[in-house]
């Protein structure tokens, strides 16, 4: 699975995005919920960087889970090579 690097805008778009796709994994949902709250309370470049890193790390950790792969496709907007 190819995971976009931390600088890819897809991460912060997911954290601050207006459109929320139907994510499949409970963990994706509650982690995004926490990160979006952090970013909303302090919308700085530093917060964005930290949140993007944490979200990316989540997908690195869960790269073998089919539902995580499906959620990553929704975030990156690209088909994920498995």
């Amino acid at each position, binding site marked *: 699975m190819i995971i976009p690097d931390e600088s890819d805008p897809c991460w912060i778009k997911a954290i601050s995005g207006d459109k*929320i796709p*139907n*994510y499949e*994994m*409970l*963990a*994706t*949902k*509650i*982690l*995004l*919920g*926490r990160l*979006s*709250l952090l970013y*909303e*309370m302090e919308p700085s470049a530093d917060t964005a960087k930290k949140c993007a890193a944490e979200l990316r*790390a*989540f997908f690195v*950790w*869960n790269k*073998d*889970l*089919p*539902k995580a792969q499906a959620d990553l496709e929704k975030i990156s907007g690209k088909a994920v090579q498995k």
Partner: protein
Amino acid sequence: MKKVLFTKDEVIKLITAGKKLILASDEKNLVDLPTGNWIAGTIPYFMGESGGVSSHDLIFVTEIPDFALEFEVKVYDESNIHHVYEDCPRHGYSVIVIPASCDTHFTFALKAPGFSGFATRPLIGWIAGVDLNDEKNTPKIFDGTHRRILDNGAVVMHITLPTNKLAEIDIVNIFEQGDGDTITFPEDGFKATNVMINGQTKNFADYLLENTVDTRLLLVTNLYGAMINTSFKSMDFAKKEVTFYAPVFAGLRYKIAKPVDDYSVSFMKDVPAGEGENVYFACNCILNFLYAGLEGKKTGKFTGPITFGEIAYQLMNQTLAYLTIQDI
């Protein structure tokens, strides 16, 4: 359906046979079990093989599957519970039990979403309790590997699975946000006085009274599609204070839940039918047991303790939490 409620003598045989077990029962049934590969928490309510049941004599047994490669039991308290996600195995899952209303419970409830590794690894479990009419005993947890009994702390069994097995957690929640006011809280906590209602400051107890809110309903926040509940515990109109069974978090947007016509019917409708064989742990909330009248009723194919709080990565409320393991 697989047997899950056992007598104490049967559980002793399982322990001496070296089985790895997560146990739930009254304290008197757990207190003198032999040392072995088990952890436990107190609770006398269960989703048994024949339906919802309360028992002061039987022990609910969740057996760790034989294909698990390794297990480790760790005990935490409020000073080191922040390591719990980091300690979860790379491939596997962890089961946690915490006694209700202890310092570790409050620390975990309030702080877990900020702990390192939060939500990256499957952590599931429950908050131990006692019979609702029991005013003498307090909730306890047990580390069976050292025969330790604690009324504050968290006992966790970290279980390593083969790399071709994947554990995953999900929840069943019959509640969704209603169409009413948006409620936000100025700080994290198990109680609230003044809150923001659609951006205007208002005492929350006054708001609930004026709007004749049915407090069997609850607060629901929507985390990217996951509906997370916070149930009302009490209202003190003299202090103008509302207390909750789980914390509210500053900044999250809550709404009073949409009314549920028939708890039991709604609950059964939302329980996934096909998951039975792959479910390796489940627990359900005591409030669902009471409000949905689950005594004597099966909860789909789910069995497990009925608890004072459910943990699915973080503390949940009035929710059924379950863990599945699949081959990849």
